[in-house]
């Protein structure tokens, strides 16, 4: 008998809000975290806007010791530690300072690439025959699992401590990996989430592919337009989201606040066959992933009353909506409410699934559905599939019962998780 799994802690370091309270407020009012970046202009990027969390030095000093701050140059690591430690504290789980680790607690915290700026620094030293000057933290700041290693050490976790990586599906996949481990009884509490670095060296490859908007450099808050007819590409972002997953048993024993239940979910790949490629999803696989998630959650497609899509603000958004309609067998006015948060904080890449899942779950707590920013001109192809009332333009009062959240990534990989209001 699989254990029931609930969410007992949330933390976030997002472009439009650092910390759960400011993030919740930002989401409710549709506040944008997208800004002009002069560095991108100086480097002659086509897209000179980005969504990056505003993290002040005095905040960093609350999460890192003076020794850890020396030579610290890994933005994703900073975001991930802030979000992860916040989520743990939010769950009210004591940080373990014993000599022995807490064997039932683990960390599954993903990233796409970590410590890019630190790596660049190292490359310059190495190329200048100065490898001896790299210092002792170059490895831990640039290894992908640096983020789970920092968090695992900070919290004293003795269960699985690892980092997953599946491009833009990373964050959602991490939640499902944590869910599986707790459901199967191998752990009681797992800090799940993901982070993504900021900066030109992360975002440059996407600019080169010409999939970022280039005509909004003087109008950044309007640039990210999921599901709209004028969607012009995704705005690159960064940050971290974190969710503490816990067995219902353990949460009830501790008297923990429960934000939601994780009913199940699915991950798969389209194998880069059919419509799938390195950069485009195989539609059959996307639909199968959503359907497998519904089966895993032991619900009917009609039980879902809110979808938080991947919906990055490219011309592919209509295809994603079509995949949802096909997978769930629901169209028009019968389609669930649907939102994309990328209108506010762009596409945070490896961090997108976790930041968006944090926001998705907050909708249960707030009894709200957060609005779709910059979607006044719903794409006509989407309007053919679903009723416009299904795409709220502003935050509405509504008590969602079951939310389906999906993320899709380069490599033709998919992840879909099902969250349920806990009562």
């Amino acid at each position, binding site marked *: 008998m699989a254990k029931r799994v609930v969410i007992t802690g949330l933390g976030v370091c997002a472009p439009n809000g650092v910390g759960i309270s400011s993030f919740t407020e930002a989401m409710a009012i549709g506040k944008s975290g997208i800004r002009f970046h002069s560095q991108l202009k100086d480097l002659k990027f086509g897209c000179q806007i980005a969504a990056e969390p505003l993290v002040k030095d005095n905040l960093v000093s609350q999460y890192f010791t*003076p*020794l850890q701050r*020396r*030579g610290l140059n890994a933005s994703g690591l900073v975001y991930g530690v802030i979000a992860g430690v916040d989520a743990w504290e939010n769950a009210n789980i004591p940080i373990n300072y014993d000599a022995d680790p807490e064997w039932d607690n683990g960390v599954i915290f993903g990233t796409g690439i970590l410590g890019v700026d630190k790596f660049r620094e190292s490359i310059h030293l190495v190329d200048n025959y100065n490898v001896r*000057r790299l*210092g*002792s*933290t170059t490895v831990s700041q640039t290894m992908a699992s640096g983020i789970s290693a920092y968090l695992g050490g900070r919290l004293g976790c003795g269960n699985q401590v690892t980092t997953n990586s599946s491009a833009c599906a990373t964050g959602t996949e991490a939640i499902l990996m944590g869910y599986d481990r707790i459901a199967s009884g191998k752990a009681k509490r797992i800090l799940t989430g993901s982070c993504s670095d900021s900066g030109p060296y992360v975002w440059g490859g996407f600019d080169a592919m010409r999939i970022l908007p280039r005509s909004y450099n003087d109008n950044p808050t309007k640039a990210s337009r999921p599901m709209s007819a004028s969607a012009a590409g995704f705005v690159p972002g960064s940050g971290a989201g974190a969710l503490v997953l816990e067995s219902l048993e353990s949460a009830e024993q501790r008297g923990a606040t429960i934000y939601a239940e994780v009913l199940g979910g699915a991950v798969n790949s389209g194998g880069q066959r059919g419509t799938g490629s390195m950069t485009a999803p195989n539609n059959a696989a996307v639909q199968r992933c959503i359907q497998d998630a519904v089966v895993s959650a032991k619900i009917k497609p009609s039980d879902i009353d809110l979808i938080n899509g991947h919906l990055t603000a490219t011309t592919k958004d209509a295809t994603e909506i079509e995949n949802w309609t096909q997978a769930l067998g629901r169209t028009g006015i019968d389609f669930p409410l649907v939102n994309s948060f990328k209108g506010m904080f762009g596409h945070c890449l490896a961090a997108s699934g976790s930041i968006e899942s944090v926001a998705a779950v907050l909708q249960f707590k707030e009894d709200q559905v957060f609005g779709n920013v910059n979607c006044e001109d719903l794409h006509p192809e989407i309007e053919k599939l679903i009723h416009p009332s299904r795409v709220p333009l502003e935050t509405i009062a509504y008590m969602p019962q079951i939310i389906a959240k999906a993320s899709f990534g380069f490599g033709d990989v998919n992840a879909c998780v099902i969250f349920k209001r806990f009562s």
Partner: protein
Amino acid sequence: MIDNNRYESLRAIIKIYLPEDVKASDINEDSHFINELNINSAHLVDIVLDVEDAFDIRLENEDMDQMQTVKDALQIIDSKVSAK
């Protein structure tokens, strides 16, 4: 004979790398970096880099191997500085 300025500069460098259960006042000339001050051996690398910057000298691998105690470090610094 110990150069007090150098000793104080070195203490200031070492202080940053002390674990929580060791106080700066525990540092003395005879302190062994790893066995007594409980400094993580990985951080000895960083102490060497900080010493290089502070005294504008360069330490070789063999210097690092010899640098077991605070006094060892001071002797190496003295010889490098006077050889400049």
